[in-house]
């Protein structure tokens, strides 16, 4: 007479052991899958294209972070190191000195250092910069355009809808890859990387 088979009964220990093993296997599979697919999707952050910026001053007033997370950046390879810097001095400044009445920046956020005749170096003091672009505009119009604005990602809180982007009249804001979060100006146009190129990369 055939022996009646009874269903396998799992011991409590076996149940826990199998449960952990299956969980671990699935978690590893999930992790692997996420890593594989997740790496294809780029994480993005907000940035403004300096080539589109019209220096409207909204960056200083519309950012939810105050002072703004947008700051002026100096591109040293582009700068002309002029004694008369149009981004630093008021138009027709009485004297080319660091006296407050001669300076264009409302917060004294530009440091002017003599290098050697005839060169002067201009540095942005970021703690003081409010992103108003008052220096950027004349530098762009009359100088080498070495001053420009960028969102600083050590300050930006990365809102879903950037409040500056919503007000930007030239639509200079776009999402760029988080691992390439700055649109830096370069000395030649050939070297310039545009957001369009970011999206192709």
């Amino acid at each position, binding site marked *: 007479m055939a022996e009646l088979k009874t269903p396998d009964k799992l011991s409590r220990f076996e*149940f826990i052991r199998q449960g952990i093993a299956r969980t671990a296997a699935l*978690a590893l599979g*999930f*992790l692997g899958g996420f890593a594989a697919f997740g790496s294809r999707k780029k994480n993005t952050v907000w940035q403004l294209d300096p080539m589109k910026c019209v220096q409207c001053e909204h960056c200083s007033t519309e950012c939810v972070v105050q002072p703004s997370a947008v700051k002026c950046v100096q591109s*040293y390879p582009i700068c002309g190191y002029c004694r008369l810097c149009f981004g630093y001095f008021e138009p027709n400044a009485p004297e080319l000195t660091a006296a407050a009445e001669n300076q264009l920046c409302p917060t004294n956020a530009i440091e002017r250092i003599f290098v*050697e*005749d005839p060169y002067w170096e201009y540095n942005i003091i970021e703690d003081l910069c409010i992103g108003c672009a008052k220096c950027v505009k*004349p530098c*762009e119009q009359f100088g080498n355009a070495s001053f420009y604005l960028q969102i600083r990602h050590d300050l930006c809180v990365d809102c879903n809808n950037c409040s500056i982007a919503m007000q930007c009249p030239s639509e200079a804001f776009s999402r760029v890859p988080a691992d390439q979060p700055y649109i830096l100006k370069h000395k030649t146009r050939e070297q310039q990387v545009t957001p369009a190129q970011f999206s192709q990369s």
Partner: protein
Amino acid sequence: MNERQLSMVLVGVIVFICGGFLFLLLRTEPNVQLPKRVTNVRDEMLAGHMGAGAGETKEAEEAVKIGEHFETFDGKAGETKAFWPHFRGADFSNISKDTVPLANSWPKQGPPVLWSLDLSEGHSGAAIWKGRVYLMDFDIEREGDALRCFSMEDGREIWRRWYKSPTKVHHGISRTVPAVTDKYVVTIGPKCHVMCVDTETGDFRWGVGMIEDYGTLMPEWYTAQCPLIDNDVAVVAPCGKEVLMMGIDCATGEIAWKTPNPDGWNMSHSSIIPMTLLGKRQYVYCSATGVVSVGAEGDDLGKVLWKTAAWAHSVTSPSPIRVDDERVFLTVGYGGGSMMLKLKDEGGQIATEPVFELDKKTFACEQQTPILYQDHLFTIMPNDGGGLRNQFVCMTTDGKMAWSSGKEERFGFGPFLVADGKVFILNDNGEFTMIRASTKGYEKLGHCKPLKGRDAWAPMAIVDGKLILRDSETVICLDLRDKGSQT
């Protein structure tokens, strides 16, 4: 639910929690830091991006011995019928009076390039005299200002007169146009050194250091003042501690006359323009502190006829334009605009009065001087010219806009001149455009890109249908003649 089903549910819950945790973990952006300095200024200097000599600390400069060196080469003077003897041509109008017909259109590649030469970085323009081209250049290796004489025919160098004057690249170096007559060539170097040499042989006549001898305050980015020769007298504006303007006898180098500078007016990038106003021949100059007119003949020679501080801009490049016997037009860039100045004879004294002023968005010019053409003014609007930014515009001398090139046709800081009823415009990047010289509207006739470099800002010169133009480091000669007129 049996134990197997229970185990599957448990596994699912754990996977969901782990997955969610991993998702949140991976979604958090890295705290990316932009370097405080995009690059390092001193690295840039060492890499040579800031020009010759940058980054080195030099001892006090040696005294400059103007005209100390001379070299000859194998070039031979060509033959030219017309002249372009100094800044803005024979009559300072920047309008060629040549009768040589120029082509009304170009092939796709543009007009033929007759010859081309490399120069050091700068914005100096050419003067043309009897088959020779005279051009200020800078010898980077030997650190010297050099007056170079080329053949107009093939661009081969004939001779070079130079002197050591260490100068660092600062938006270029050389930026003036020599003045030439049958006997003399007068130049002004970037650091305000005036030199006079023989037109044909290049023999040195004399030199004057306006900074060393007259206490001139050199303008930013070196001087762009172009010299003037009038009746064998070189006329320059040192704007020094005591002398505002002076005449130097070309034959002897002796000072023929001096105009005092009691108000301490400073040198600009503008040039002295001779003109006749209220029947008096005079030299008009826009300093960085005001406009002055100095008598150019008779008892008035060297005397201030009129001056006004109503037109004072710290960076002034355009030169004054005579509109008629009693009006002078002044313009500037860098946030300035324009002014029409009217002169009145009040009991033997000349008084000035602004007729109208225009803001930077209406009419201005940054680096070039507008052209007066058929009672209209041509200019290229500056970068801060609002909607007209970088457009070529035409305005009546009453200050009414006649036309502009439109938003699709914008230019830069480059030069423009009129020849054979056409305007030739050079853009910063070497693009070259020909339009009809008209007071009615913008009509484009041709476009090409004969220069590959940047900062093509030097004034152009044209004789016999051949145009000399340059970018920051290359000069070329273009044949603009109509094919039917070429021999």
